[in-house]
């Protein structure tokens, strides 16, 4: 058997795990590991400019591929800088393995240089964490970390490694396990058959059904099965912000995103539905609005791999704990069997009436029906940027976003037909996510268009990564929708604080983004008018080997609508424009 040092074991185990990229930043506590990576490890390492970007880049890589991302950071500030990205991954159930260096074992607890209790600090935002106590444990611990991160409801796992454990002069037998078993961890592998039968009966008997599908469907590999089910039943499908792409947006059964900035027709259909199939969703507060007013007539079927998601906020009438792919397969079989054995199938006339109602909503206020924003303005509307981008990329780009108005416009106006194309921080709402995430996506898909939709607020939270893109030649397109304000903050201040824009603008302090991009060796483009918009987007996307920073000046007065009315509103209570409400 081979003898390796702890540091070498880390490098080798990552190779044996099939890791494609390591996103990281060296420092004192991980120098032995970095030396092992340098000497004999073939995994490309991406040196970011800030550890937060390492976690977001790994996260973007993962969201676009389904494969677990890997982050390597040093102790103390390296570890704490990674925290925001770990929390981001945790909230959106993204598998990630974060290796953090730690001070030498004998110094732990002594407030040593660059010491921080990483296991303690990260505890509420990880699926699990390990502290390595001896080098021999490294292979099994890394295997366990990948297993835990990717199975069940995925999530980030931290492995904290004291420096002395990785020292090069002590070698141990190395064998990477094929599999690991944990007695206290066994995620569900099948949904309960009886519950699934009950659910399908309720679903087939529905007169006003809605399928409410979320990020869990994407993560659980259930997109095709879900699409098959919805088409077979001819039922409307709405997606959460995290679920966009799990059902084709261009299918006529897609009624748009739901929730706080969801489509009018989606929110109305939910509110008036009699049966909701919630799958891979968690009935989160940005969807439900006021809990006791949520969908008053609906029987709730809730499918999720995580039992804690079920009946946490909204009580499920028919709970099903299980992986979405196996549950959807069982549901499809059950629909067929009901039809064949009992001649039970959906009430076509009732479903037709339901579609008529939904189509009326669509005709009146549907965002894709006709522009729901004023088009007589001189200034570019942010919605027009997304619509033009959608046309120019034919809906085939990988789109990452930051957080704020631009994120909501992107979610509303870019139509995702496939899963893993829309990459955003839904749960934590992390500004600064989009650009490093786009780096991870581009590294995984070098031949595809990768676009980061951002704003001048968010982009400045991780703008230093332009340097990383120079070093590794990562040609993403950054679409900076520049309205000179923290737009979503301003929108709330307009709506709820009588227009007092407290600290939501930068007083002419914004940099010249074009020059800044050029300073890093990239291409910068400034776009001021609607006439320039489409040609500029085409030009940017044609420069396949260049990072293009598009600084697009958009109308600062624009608000995101619809917007659910809170507090005390139901899903059906929405602002549709600055003056019109339901």
């Amino acid at each position: 058997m081979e003898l390796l040092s702890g540091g070498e074991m880390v490098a080798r185990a990552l190779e044996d795990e099939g890791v494609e990229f390591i996103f990281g930043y060296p420092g004192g506590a991980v120098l032995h590991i970095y030396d092992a990576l340098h000497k004999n490890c073939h995994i490309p390492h991406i040196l970011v400019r800030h550890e937060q970007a390492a976690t977001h880049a790994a996260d973007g890589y993962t969201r676009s591929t389904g494969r677990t991302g890997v982050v390597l950071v040093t102790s103390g500030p390296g570890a704490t800088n990674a925290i925001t990205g770990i929390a981001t991954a945790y909230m959106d159930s993204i598998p990630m393995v974060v290796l953090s260096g730690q001070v030498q074992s004998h110094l732990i607890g002594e407030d040593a240089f660059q010491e921080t209790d990483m296991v303690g600090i990260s505890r509420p935002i990880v699926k699990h964490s390990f502290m390595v106590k001896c080098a021999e444990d490294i292979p099994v611990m890394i295997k366990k970390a990948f297993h835990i991160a990717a199975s069940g409801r995925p999530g980030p796992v931290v492995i904290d490694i004291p420096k002395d454990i990785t020292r090069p002069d002590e070698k141990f037998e190395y064998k990477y396990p094929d599999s690991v078993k944990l007695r206290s961890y066994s995620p569900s592998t099948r949904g309960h058959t009886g519950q699934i039968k009950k659910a399908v009966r309720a679903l087939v008997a529905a007169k006003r059904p809605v399928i409410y599908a979320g990020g869990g469907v994407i993560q659980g590999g259930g997109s095709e099965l879900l699409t098959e089910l919805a088409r077979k039943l001819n039922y409307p499908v709405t997606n959460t912000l995290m679920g966009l792409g799990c059902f084709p947006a261009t299918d006529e059964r897609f009624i748009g995103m739901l929730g706080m900035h969801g489509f009018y027709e989606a929110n109305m259909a939910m509110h008036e539905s009699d049966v909701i199939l919630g799958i891979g969703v968690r009935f989160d507060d940005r969807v439900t609005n006021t809990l006791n007013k949520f969908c008053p007539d609906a029987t709730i079927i809730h499918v999720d791999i995580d039992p804690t998601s079920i009946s946490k906020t909204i009580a499920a009438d028919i709970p099903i704990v299980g992986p979405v792919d196996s549950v959807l397969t069982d549901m499809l079989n059950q629909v067929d069997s009901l039809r064949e054995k009992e001649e039970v199938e959906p009430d076509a006339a009732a479903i037709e009436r339901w579609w008529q109602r939904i189509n009326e909503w669509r005709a009146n206020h549907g965002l894709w029906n006709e522009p729901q924003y004023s088009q007589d303005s001189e200034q570019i509307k942010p919605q027009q940027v997304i619509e033009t981008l959608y046309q120019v990329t034919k809906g085939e780009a990988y789109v990452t976003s930051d957080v704020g108005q631009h994120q909501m416009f992107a979610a509303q106006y870019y139509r995702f037909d496939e899963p893993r194309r829309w990459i955003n921080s839904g749960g934590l709402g992390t500004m600064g996510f989009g650009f490093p995430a786009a780096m991870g996506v581009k590294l995984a898909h070098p031949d595809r268009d990768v676009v980061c939709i951002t704003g001048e607020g968010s982009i400045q939270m991780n703008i230093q990564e332009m340097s990383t893109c120079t070093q590794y030649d990562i040609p993403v397109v950054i679409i900076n929708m520049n309205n000179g304000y923290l737009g979503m903050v301003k929108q709330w201040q307009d709506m709820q604080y009588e227009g007092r824009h407290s600290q939501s603008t930068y007083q002419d302090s914004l940099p010249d983004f074009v020059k800044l991009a050029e300073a890093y060796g990239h291409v910068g483009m400034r776009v001021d008018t609607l006439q320039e918009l489409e040609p500029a987007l085409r030009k940017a996307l044609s420069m396949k080997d260049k990072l293009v920073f598009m600084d697009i000046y958009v109308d600062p007065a624009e608000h995101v609508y619809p917007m659910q009315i809170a507090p005390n509103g139901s899903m059906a209570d929405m602002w549709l424009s600055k003056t019109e409400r339901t």
Partner: protein
Amino acid sequence: MRRILSLLMENEPGALSRVVGLFAQRGYNIDSLNVAETEDVTLSRLTLTTHGDDRKIEQITKQLNKLVDVVKVVDLTEGAHIERDLMLVKVRASGSQREEIKRTTDIFRGQVIDVGATLYTIQLLGTRDKLDAFLKAVGEAQIIEVVRTGVSGIARGEKVLSL
């Protein structure tokens, strides 16, 4: 409603902090808690009392089960069970009170385990209610110091919490 949750968890550093952290993080209450090794050295058993409506308790149980270090969780209050809390209490005992305190201790089947010139240290074992009743009987004015282990519990009859 008050519940007694009993957990088997990996006897590893950090496991307890995950359980306690979960309660803090999600705004659940811990009324008492104790933890120690079991007959299997790789496992420790943690008993905690909490309160909340059925939905909250269900959510707490599910969240606990989700922790990777937690092997099993039972709600002892769902069935017949035995609970015990051990209390050590120092009480003022001088003059005529000395006899009275001793009598009260006997009634509650406690023991005086240490004696000072003006105080007794009493050990008492029982349910939470019994210990509360003893403290009330002795009277607040007499009590100098109270230390309780928190509730431990076990199911009655054949039911066993094990792997």
